[in-house]
């Protein structure tokens, strides 16, 4: 494959070019209620070529090798078009030349497990959920995604890396008359198939919560102090802070760049946030990003002060900051963009019980139900929550969406417990999907979050 990639690169008359070929192997099993809706595997592949010349940059994705001449021509034309009009010529930060093949260790390679066994396990968890008579239906899916990537550039790098992700996840819907509630359930990771075994408790627990939601009261809209659990805290960290640490988000927004200068205080002394794709066994692990740059553990916020940022080679050069291997594509359909790998708030010295006690009155909110950011504003949903009165956890509440502003909310994190937990499944939709987006926190206490409600 490297010979094929190099032969395409030889056709590119430019200062720099790189090309990535990916073979993507997907296995999917899907249940809707008791019915099997989908089962099977497919393999597809494609190429992404990137060209940098005369300060202009462009990329092209193509699937048919017969189109390689056209792809090369188009990429060069687009790079030159950009070079004519760009005020700040694009440059790439210098990085090491790497030749390596890397495949993370797996405890049970899912490719060695039969489709029958995968089906049986998915069905077992689906049946467990459906054994609860208040469950109206399920949408429980097995997904296995293997990306076999070959990367080569004109500097001489040649990297092969394999990323294997598997999960059993979905939606559980409960119903009582006209009231419909749903909750997400997930088990998975990138450490192998064994992470999916013996997870009955996860599915039983979420099935129980789905039925309890039918008796829960809708949350009252307003401004509250809240404790977030690890999953919800992780989505908060990803959505509210993490995206603003991605240099491409603020690259051309001068007022935002000014506000996000390294050295700026953004949170209280207790808050330390790091992104680290190098942690083997975690969902977000990879060794090289899709620019062929080795991933690095990157402290972002230390004692509340901004100390780092996630970069591509292009933005590292533009910002004059170190490159750290955070430029990742969904698959062969896309050029890579800057993304988080595994982002987390580092553990504090409080306990969960201590946080609830400090909260006094407010809400304890659990498990994310999707999130979204637009600049400094974020919104994310909680799957369920509990009223907290006088430091005691009370009745369940539902229909919880939280909104806030990055700067004020980060400053309002006032206590952090010692129980960090990272997510097993992820999903980030910044232009492309990233199912290996990993996040987590300990329990965190935040003052004055807005909760939407009637």
């Amino acid at each position, binding site marked *: 494959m490297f010979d094929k990639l190099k032969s395409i690169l030889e056709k590119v008359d430019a200062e720099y070019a790189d090309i990535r070929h990916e073979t993507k192997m997907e296995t999917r099993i899907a249940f809707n209620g008791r019915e*099997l809706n989908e089962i099977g595997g497919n393999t597809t*592949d494609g190429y992404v070529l990137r060209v940098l010349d005369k300060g202009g940059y462009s990329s092209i994705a193509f*699937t*048919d090798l017969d189109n390689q001449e056209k792809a090369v021509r*188009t990429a060069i*034309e687009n790079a030159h078009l950009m070079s004519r009009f760009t005020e700040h010529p694009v440059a790439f930060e210098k990085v090491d030349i790497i030749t390596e093949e890397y495949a993370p260790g797996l405890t049970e390679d899912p490719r060695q497990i039969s489709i029958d066994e995968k089906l049986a396990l998915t069905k077992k968890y689906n049946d467990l959920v459906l054994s609860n008579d208040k469950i109206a239906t399920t949408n429980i899916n097995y997904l296995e995604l293997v990306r076999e990537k070959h990367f080569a550039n004109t500097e001489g790098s040649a990297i092969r890396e394999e990323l294997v992700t598997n999960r059993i996840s979905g939606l559980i819907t409960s119903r009582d008359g006209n009231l419909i509630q749903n909750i997400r359930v997930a088990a998975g990771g990138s450490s192998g198939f064994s992470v999916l075994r013996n997870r009955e408790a996860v599915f039983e627990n979420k099935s129980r919560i789905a039925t309890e939601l039918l008796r829960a009261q809708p949350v009252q*809209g307003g401004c509250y102090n809240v404790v977030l659990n690890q999953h919800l805290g992780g989505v908060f960290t990803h959505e509210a802070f993490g995206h603003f640490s991605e240099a491409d988000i603020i690259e051309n927004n001068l007022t935002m760049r000014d506000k996000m200068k390294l050295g700026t205080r953004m949170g209280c002394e207790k808050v330390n946030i790091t992104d680290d794709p190098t942690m083997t066994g975690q969902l977000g692990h990879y060794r090289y990003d899709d620019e062929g740059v080795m991933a690095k553990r990157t402290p972002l916020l230390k004692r509340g002060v901004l100390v780092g940022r996630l970069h591509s080679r292009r933005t590292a050069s533009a910002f004059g900051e170190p490159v750290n291997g955070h430029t990742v594509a969904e698959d062969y359909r896309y050029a890579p963009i800057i993304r988080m790998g595994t982002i987390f708030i580092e553990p504090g010295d409080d306990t969960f019980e201590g946080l609830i006690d400090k909260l006094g009155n407010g809400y304890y909110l659990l498990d994310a139900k999707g999130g979204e950011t637009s600049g400094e504003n974020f919104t994310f*949903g909680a799957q369920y929550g509990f009223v907290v009165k006088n430091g005691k956890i009370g009745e369940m509440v539902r229909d919880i969406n939280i909104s806030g502003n990055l700067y004020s909310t980060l400053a309002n994190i006032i206590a952090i417990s010692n129980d960090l937990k990272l997510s097993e499944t992820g999903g980030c939709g910044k232009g492309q999907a990233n199912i290996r987006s990993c996040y987590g926190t300990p329990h965190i206490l935040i003052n*004055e979050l*807005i909760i939407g409600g009637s």
Partner: protein
Amino acid sequence: MERLIEAAKFHSDAFEIYELDESRNTIEFEDGKLKDIQSTIHAGVALRIIKDRRAGFAYTKNLSNHEALVLNAVDTLKGGVEAPYDFPPAKSVPTLNTYDVAIEQMTNSTIVDECRRINALMKSKVSGQINIDAGTSISGIKIRNSSGADLSTKTSYYAITISILYPESATGIERSLEFKKFEEVGDSFLNSLIDLYNRSEREITAGGRMKILFMPEAMYTLIWRLQSAVSGKSLYHGQSPLAGKLNTDIFSKQLSIIDNPLDDSHPGARAFDDEGVPCKELVIVDKGTLTNYYYDLFYAAKMKAKPNGRGFKTSRWNDDRISVRPMPTLTSLFIEPGTTGFEQLIGSMQRGIIVCGALGAHSGNIPNGDFSIGLSPGLYVEGGQIVGRIKDAMIAGNIYSIMNRVLDIEDCLHPAYTGYYPAVLFDDINVATKS
């Protein structure tokens, strides 16, 4: 392709071959600077087969081995996925005007020039940062099946989205236009954006119950919940609060919501769906009354209903179209416009908020019709005038309640996510803020 057809015939009782060819260019300007140019040339083939009433499915990006694709589909039959439908026979479908050959003469240079022109024109009139995304696509779809259907369509598409950002923020006023070929953006469109931005520069804190004007760009928040409730899939799986409610009043009499893939005045019109079933106009809500559900082949068979040409290979999370199976999908929704101009709508609000963008529309309890969104941004209206933009606020409600409190509807449609919508004014929605 003939070899694939022969192999599919040999291994199945019935088959369907779906081919997709697509090329795209996207151009991104940030703060008047050309940031990125990306191109894509993709193709693919998806095969569905039926054997002994079981369904098989496979796809590929490079059809180098016909037999392997068919055998992969055959392999999936073992799972026992039910196929309670037949592929539709050949039927004549109307010829739609979906492709403008002028798109082939258009270069990225044309788009870059247009973005620079717009930026220069707007820059002197607003203080906010101007971002522009523009792009073209040409896509071709062919569907052949063992029942004799042999259909094809070719689509040209040019879209441009212009945003003006508030200072120290990535939130702003944003609107899009869509065409079948390149067209210059008109001054009145740009001036309306500039005007909205300039009137909303001041940050204001306000909350409580008030009138809410959903801009077309935020209407998908509500429409998603309706789409979920009237889908054949939701009905079959017991997830729809509208099951059994055909011909009952569900919304205000002012609301008519229609899906019309045949309307080729907009780009992307379709005479047939991704299963080869002819499309026709489908009135979902007629003056507040629920009139139709929508189906693909699978869920129509399950619900013992007639398929109505709504089986499309789409996915909310941008999955590759080739890799997904058709599902019940509404592609060409619009809300019947009213008779009131946009400025008159604002003038009729003593106190209220204009929701220009929604954050978190996907994360509420969609089947139940509940929503709870951040305002990104929400413009504050007092005494019939926009006086600023609201800081840190959320609104929440349930569509079966608020869509019965429609006060007025704008007199024209705008392209937006999931369809073409007017701005719609609702009464009495709670706004949660820090105040």
